């Protein structure tokens, strides 16, 4: 192939010619197979090319359930980023579909017109959502009707979230009451959508459990506010261009704005069929994962049929990937895949479900141990055959799940007293289970991490739970194995497990969580950041990463009594402006509620002209940003503006966005502008663990986007006001939870202030309200803040009042710099401005 005229071009000349490995399908199985191949020295044997129909690197599909429910962001679920492919010299054709394989000439043909030769081929095309036959699913043009969704890909998930968040969309129907359907229903519910599940089986999750468990599961699901219809088949999707409802057989129609179809999956086998490969229910492979009768074509994942089984879970594909890699690289030609025993868990917060194997006894000699406590939603059923577990269903209590899963998976011998399988009765507890597990036992099914891999990591010196999790990725999938991971790490470290340092600390440099830190500060009467380091840090060592968080906490706790050391502040807070990429700063004067005046506008215009401001921009928070101001000019700019700071730079109360409201808007029912200005005047500049963005809207049309603010207020009919907390619409999107509905704008201010104070006292450093509110729970917040269940309302109000009283406009420092050279430039030689001038 290589002629003498060819010059070596790559920087890494290879000894022998490498074979061409082509992988079709860049999902969990395809990427994992490649990882296993690389781990066996595959990079020296192969040049690797991957095709993926989706326009991304490989991500953890399992986590889409958490993305839908808002517990994870879609950016956090990537397993292989695009740079991973680059670093491993893998050519990735993302967003490209393979249409045909010519197994005789050994080429694949893709829909970008490319023809790619291979020596070895791996097919990992996975599955797709099954759309059962029903009327009205498709438009006459053949595409799926607007408002109908599958639940398989990131794009499906993003589109569902987008659709669910459109304001007029309030009701959804999920077709299918299995794992996927329930996770979809729960996810949509957390966007404030009313959800009904239509399931054709006689009880929920009928593939995983019997009717008794199903009945108890139904109660738990209904307790989440999700309606369930069993033994109902959907016959049609209603609506002309967009969904307006569904028809059921024998039942009344249900009106809805969206339909999610989660009625099973079908392996993607079109490619294999078209290319003449053996396909029954899926692509038929042997124990080496080789496609039947093909020497150079392998297949792995959900698209395969092995010994008659087709799997729909990830655990089997980790095992398959190992065997496949052993054969493809020649690392272990004796390796064989003999099938997997699978266990499933439902990823719905508050509803614990785990299931494996048989639902009930099948032979006369099978033992069946059942415990049922419907009022608490607890149900346990275990089937034992020949002193081994052959099936288990556990609802509402997951304490024994890890142990039972392993006992099932490995066929461990069982204790005589069967009751100790279900409860800790002084019998073998979790620890014994861990010690008994054999090395190959899989601890994390999502990421295929064995006990041995974890133990090796710990022996290699990684003795924190979070460290071992980072190193192995154990526990980073659905998260349900975290407890077992912890037990294994603790067992492997022989009691020498180090507590995860950063995990519970408020700031990394002080080994205390927030309550203990605040307590120590109070008890020892510490007033400044340096005093805190001296008294509480190990070795009294300062820690740069902790300074800003401590400064904020102390100011919140001590208000006027705080000794403000400027070096503890981040540069933005030292000079009261937001640093830009070129080291200049942006100046955002306060413009309460987004309302300005002729005088302000004229003054801003004059200042911008005098200082040659390179960019004048309206911010998303309804004020005017002057960008590209050199540090040394800040005091003069503030003096010329003579307006207070808008705090667009700190971890603090930022701004209140308002809509026009009832004075001008023909829909308005409340004076949103007035209330917004009052809120901003009251809480201006107070520091908090992370920034606080607020809004007030004059009616439920919500022009100020109150539902996606840290604190959002909406006027409703009858002169009442709704108060939402914990919303966000940045990198993370979350609809706020309704905290209270009140009659009086004064009450709004009190509750908003009390909520913010509680957040200031309880939240972790940099924890935005969109994480804080779901973490502590809206019911708890309502109890504390509205009903004063803990009797701390008065104290919260007083603490907030003290902060409000100690407010000083920081831009006052212009005349009297607090530290020498406070506004001296730090980049004396840079040519400014670098922000493009428009």
């Amino acid at each position, binding site marked *: 192939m290589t002629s003498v005229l060819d010059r070596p071009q790559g920087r890494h000349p290879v000894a022998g010619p490498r074979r061409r490995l082509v992988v079709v399908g860049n999902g969990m199985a395809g990427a994992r197979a490649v990882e296993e191949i690389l781990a066996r020295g595959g990079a020296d044997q192969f040049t690797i090319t991957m095709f993926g129909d989706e326009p991304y690197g490989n991500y953890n599909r399992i986590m889409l359930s958490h993305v839908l429910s808002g517990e994870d962001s879609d950016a956090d679920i990537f397993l292989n980023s695009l740079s991973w492919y680059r670093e491993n010299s893998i050519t990735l054709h993302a967003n490209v579909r393979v249409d045909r394989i010519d197994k005789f000439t050994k080429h694949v043909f893709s829909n970008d017109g490319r023809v790619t030769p291979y020596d070895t081929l791996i097919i990992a095309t996975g599955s797709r959502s099954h759309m059962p036959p029903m009327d009205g699913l498709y438009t006459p043009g053949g595409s799926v009707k607007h408002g109908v969704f599958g639940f398989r890909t990131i794009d499906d998930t993003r589109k569902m979230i987008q659709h669910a968040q459109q304001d007029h969309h309030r009701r959804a129907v999920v077709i299918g009451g299995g794992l996927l359907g329930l996770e979809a229903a729960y996810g949509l519910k957390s966007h404030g959508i009313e959800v009904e599940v239509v399931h054709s089986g006689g009880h929920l999750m009928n593939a995983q459990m019997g009717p008794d468990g199903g009945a108890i599961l139904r109660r738990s699901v209904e307790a989440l506010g999700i309606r369930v219809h069993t033994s109902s088949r959907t016959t049609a999707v209603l609506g002309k261009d967009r969904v307006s409802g569904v028809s059921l057989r024998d039942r009344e129609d249900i009106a809805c704005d969206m339909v999610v179809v989660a009625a099973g999956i079908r392996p993607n086998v079109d490619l294999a069929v078209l290319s003449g490969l053996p396909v029954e229910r899926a692509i038929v492979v042997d124990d080496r994962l080789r496609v039947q009768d093909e020497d150079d074509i392998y297949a792995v994942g959900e698209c395969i049929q092995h010994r008659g089984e087709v799997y729909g879970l990830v655990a089997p594909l980790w095992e398959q990937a190992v065997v496949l890699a052993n054969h493809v690289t020649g690392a272990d030609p004796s390796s064989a895949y003999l099938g997997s025993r699978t266990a499933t868990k439902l990823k719905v917060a508050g509803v614990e479900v785990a299931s494996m194997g048989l639902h009930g006894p099948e032979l006369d000699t099978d033992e069946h141990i059942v415990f049922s406590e419907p009022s608490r939603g607890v149900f346990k059923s275990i089937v034992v055959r020949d002193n081994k577990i052959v099936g288990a269903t556990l609802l509402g209590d997951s304490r024994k799940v890890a142990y039972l899963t392993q006992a099932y998976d490995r066929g461990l011998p069982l204790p005589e007293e069967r009751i100790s399988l279900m409860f800790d009765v002084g019998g073998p507890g979790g620890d014994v289970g861990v010690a008994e597990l054999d090395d190959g036992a899989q601890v994390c099914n999502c990421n295929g991490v064995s006990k041995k891999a974890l133990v090796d990591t710990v022996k290699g010196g990684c003795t924190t739970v979070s460290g071992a999790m980072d190193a192995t990725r154990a526990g980073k999938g659905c998260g349900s194995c975290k407890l077992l991971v912890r037990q294994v790490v603790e067992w492997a470290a022989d009691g020498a497990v180090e507590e995860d340092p950063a995990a519970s600390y408020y700031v990394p*440099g002080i080994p205390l969580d927030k309550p203990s830190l605040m307590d120590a500060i109070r008890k020892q009467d510490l007033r400044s950041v*340096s005093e805190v380091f001296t008294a509480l840090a190990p070795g009294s*060592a*300062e*820690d*740069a*990463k902790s*300074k*800003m968080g401590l400064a904020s906490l102390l100011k919140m706790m001590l208000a006027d009594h705080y000794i403000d*050391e*400027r*070096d*503890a502040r*981040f*540069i*933005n807070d*030292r000079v009261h402006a937001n*640093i830009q*990429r*070129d*080291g200049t700063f942006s100046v955002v004067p306060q413009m309460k509620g987004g309302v300005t005046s002729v005088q302000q506008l004229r003054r801003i215009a004059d200042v911008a002209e005098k200082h040659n401001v390179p960019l004048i921009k309206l911010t998303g928070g309804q004020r005017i940003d002057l960008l590209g101001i050199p540090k040394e000019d800040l005091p003069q700019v503030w003096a010329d503006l003579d307006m207070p700071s808008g705090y667009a730079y700190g971890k603090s109360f930022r701004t209140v966005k308002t809509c026009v409201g009832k004075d001008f808007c023909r829909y308005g029912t409340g004076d949103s502008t007035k209330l917004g200005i009052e809120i901003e005047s009251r809480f201006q500049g107070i520091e908090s663990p992370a920034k606080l963005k607020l809004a007030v809207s004059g009616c439920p049309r919500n022009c100020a986007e109150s539902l996606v603010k840290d604190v959002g207020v909406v006027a409703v009919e009858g002169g009442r006001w709704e108060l939402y907390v914990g919303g966000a619409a940045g990198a993370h999107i979350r609809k706020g939870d309704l905290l209270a509905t009140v009659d009086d704008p004064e009450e709004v201010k009190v509750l908003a202030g009390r909520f913010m104070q509680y957040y200031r006292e309880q939240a972790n450093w940099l924890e935005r309200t969109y994480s804080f509110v779901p973490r502590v729970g809206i019911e708890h917040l309502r109890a504390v803040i509205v009903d004063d269940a803990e009797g701390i309302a008065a104290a919260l109000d007083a603490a907030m009042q003290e902060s409000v009283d100690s407010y000083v406009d920081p831009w006052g420092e212009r005349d009297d710099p607090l*530290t*020498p*050279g406070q506004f*001296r*430039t*730090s*980049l*004396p*030689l*840079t040519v400014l401005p670098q922000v493009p001038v428009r």
Partner: protein
Amino acid sequence: MSAAPKSPGPMNPSPVNPCPTNTRLHTLGPVDQIPLGEGRAFGVDGEQVAVFRLRDGTLRALSAVCPHRGGPIADGTIDRQVVICPLHQHAFDLETGCSRTGAEPLRAYSVREDAEQNIVLHNEMNDVEN
């Protein structure tokens, strides 16, 4: 404000006539122009140098431009060991300039306080052109 090469310290015969090790000494003015725990930037021999005054009173000096995207190192947050660039939070050892976060290193200068509480910076000239 940024100090041009000024009168030589007592040990150095003349700044324009480098000593055998090719080190130039620069007096950058009084230490109290740098608040405790902060940094300030100086122009020295046409280079930008960030000088930090640690909370224990000692001084450290590094080149003032972050190798990552040119961030102003003198505006960073420090402790006794590292400075953190304000733009993207890369951390650099104050003693050696080496990055703790995988960025290219900053150049480290030796710096001290003289008897008159002036900042004295040693600039080792590794280029021969001067």
